[in-house]
């Protein structure tokens, strides 16, 4: 879905670095798609001020409880606070932007 820059009203005036964590469970089509979608959105809206950390719960199961992960893929915005969570393959860009507070909830 194409994103028009006119409707994207950034809420954060200060250009903070976004620290994002993407939880997946194995290299599934869903997790690959989620990462692809996430990278695309970040390049579009957070260029130069984001970090993506990917965690495969099959390799690090003990990390699931800390961020209260149930669903995968789950994207967690660790910074800026407060922590935000977006679950799913991130295929709806508008909702991801809303979830990351990059666009006001309508």
């Amino acid at each position, binding site marked *: 879905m194409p994103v028009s820059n006119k409707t994207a009203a950034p809420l954060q005036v200060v250009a903070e670095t976004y620290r994002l964590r993407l*939880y997946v*469970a*194995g290299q599934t089509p*869903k997790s690959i*798609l*989620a990462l692809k*979608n996430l990278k695309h959105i970040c390049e579009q809206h957070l260029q130069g001020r984001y970090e993506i950390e990917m965690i495969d*719960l*099959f390799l690090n*199961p*003990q990390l*699931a*409880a800390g961020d*209260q*992960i*149930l*669903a*995968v*893929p*789950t994207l967690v915005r660790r910074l800026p606070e407060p*922590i*935000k*969570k*977006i*679950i*799913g*393959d*991130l*295929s*709806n860009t508008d*909702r*991801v932007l*809303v*979830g990351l507070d990059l666009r006001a909830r309508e």
Partner: protein
Amino acid sequence: MDTRKIDVEAVPSRARGAELTKAATGIRGLDEITRGGLPRGRPTLICGGAGSGKTLMALTFLANGALLFDEPGVLMTFEENAEEIRSDVASLGFDTDALVAANKLAIDYVRVERSEIEETGEYDLEGLFVRLDYAIRSVGAKRVVLDTIETLFAGLRNDGILRSELRRLFRWLKEQGVTAVITAERGEGALTRHGLEEYVSDAVILLDHRVCDQVSTRRLRVVKYRGSHHGTNEYPFLINRDGISMLPVSSMALEHRAPLDRVSSGIDALDDMLSGKGYYRGSTVLVSGMAGTGKTSLAAHFIEAACRRGERCLCFLFEESPAQLLRNMRSIGIDLEPWVTAGLLQFHAERPSRYGLETHLVTMHHAVADFKPAVAVIDPVTNLMTVGTFADVQAMLTRMIDHLKTENITAMLTSLMPGLTAIERTETTISSLMDTWLVLANDDVRGRHRRGLYVLKSRGMAHSNELREFAITDGGMNIRYPAEAPANSPGVWRFEEGAGHASL
């Protein structure tokens, strides 16, 4: 790894008559009802309304597994926080911290806040599986409790994904070979609010907390137990500081000891009527009669005799206060106060309407456990009948009497009969539990009030069949021997064979 991995549902021809292996809950009564416990290696659904005790029952299953059966457990809780769980379990007498430290219990607190979560696109609940798997491996769990997983319906928007994932989860639990308990909220017109019974179909236990006439009673019913026999009735159960317990009346094994030694009734003439030696120790004696026939006096003799032997005596009063009883008995020459002072006699006076049956039973159990009496008196047991339905009262008394017999406590229950004709109706419910049944009767003959007493039944002894006249004097009950009977009115009312009540 082993045959448990095979989904039994997919295997149509299991050996005929072979019962499932079971995982004992350690909950007294429940294991009897279910003939050994929950289906091993399968999920069981425990459903009930708020406050019905489903979480406590699930936690007991886990804690008993870890403590009694060397089966470590995993608790995945979707509702409470660590502190609440700890205090819940502590209220049952378990120490979660110690269990966790001993690697016998793993707890995972799952929190889902719908407002914090945005959903976009496809997902699954593999994270939940990962966490559960991790917890199971960390302690080598054999038991798993999910309490209450349907909370996820409030946390996640996509019902379709959730349902298919729950189906997968329960299948996965079976594959792991763990015995799982899933709690769920009771739904309207359905067992559970979100239809979980559709996914967990091996065993379903329904808990109920009813308030009837402002009195609360907890009940349990095994709705379903695939591949196993089970009791189908509703069973009352209790939650107290000792945990959960229930009385499966119909499946109760009768295995009380039958001591041969005897205890005096406190009245020589009555002992004589009971083949000369009085009651059997550990037996249960019912004394019934209309108002003012001397039931409490008979009990007072029994209490005094016990105290004289140096035995501890516990007395539950549901009508009089201890002070009233002491005063009244002093008037007939029985002074019980010194025994109270000496610590041999203890009273528990309670208005029957004050608590539900369940609570009465609990209180009485605790009193018995604390005081460890040799003799117990309930005066009058009929006042408890106002508290619940007949069936409930019977179940409760059965349980109480069962407990007293197990502890080898000789018990006397007095029963107030509304009238002579009512004897069968009001008392047959409990009479079969009684070893000895004494009946007190009055009549008026030629302007003279007579008091009589007879032994309606007394198991295991040759007892008198005579209706004896007695007087209540300032020296206590004075039962006349036939020879002492005044010539004009026979002191002995012959009890006609076969004409009266059949002695059971």
